[in-house]
């Protein structure tokens, strides 16, 4: 497989590109999950009437990030 890759420089560039983009999207997803986790911790510490709304917004946010990730994978 490595010989095949070396024989075709475009394939190597594609592989580097795909790895980079997937890495960026995984990084953004991890950031999103950590953000939502931190928000949950703070929701435990201060309870307001907006908690339900905040919870829904965080789920929609995570779902949206996941959809963007799937679109990116499919686009590759």
């Amino acid at each position, binding site marked *: 497989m490595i010989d095949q890759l070396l024989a075709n420089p475009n394939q190597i560039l594609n592989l580097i*590109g795909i790895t980079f983009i997937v890495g960026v999207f995984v990084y953004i997803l991890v950031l999103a999950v950590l953000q939502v986790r931190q928000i949950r911790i*703070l929701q435990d510490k*201060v309870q307001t009437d907006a908690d339900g709304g905040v919870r829904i917004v965080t789920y929609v946010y995570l779902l949206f990030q996941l959809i963007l990730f799937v679109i990116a994978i499919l686009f590759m």
Partner: protein
Amino acid sequence: MTENKQQNGGHILINPQQLKKVNPWTSLASFPSNIHVDGQNPNEFLLLFVREHKIILIGNLLIYSVVLFLPQIIRSLVLYLDTDFLGGFLSSITFFESKWWTLINLAWYSYILTGYFNIFFRWFYNINILTTERFMDIDFTSIFANRIESAAITDIEDIKDEQVGIIQSLFNMGNLTLLTASGGTIFSLNNVPKSYKIRDFIMDVTIQVKDKKGPKDD
């Protein structure tokens, strides 16, 4: 129980009728009945709820919006330079028409969304609360950390209020610094609306508590 009967709320006496439902998105509210903090005692009530002024949130969101169009700016800049100085060398690569450019854009807007989310919730969860027993400072410092500091009302010794700059003067907000008796903890409330009223309110509560407890022996 008569309507005027006061209820013992921790160190100070408050009238339960003073408690009211407040908008949870507000920057400043007194006697909120619908906001609760972790570890709140049954006879402990919230007296004051403070966040940064909303204009700070709007300002931060607007500043962050500058980077929203960064990919388009880079594209325009590269194509401009290419036409004028490189004689169309970069255009021959056709990178900006490739799937990679679309993917970079997608990743960029995904990251920007994370930034907007972060700015909003850092504002939403940077809260200062005065209860009938203590003062609390809750900070969403980063996505990896949060910080909660609290001090008994009786420990609050001095409050400094300052209004600096055009924005603070224009939107009637200021910075408050609360010093505790032990000298160990200093609370900083930055860009809070009507800071002079907050300072007055906290001082009134502190004096009321100290009067009730009587003078200290030292």
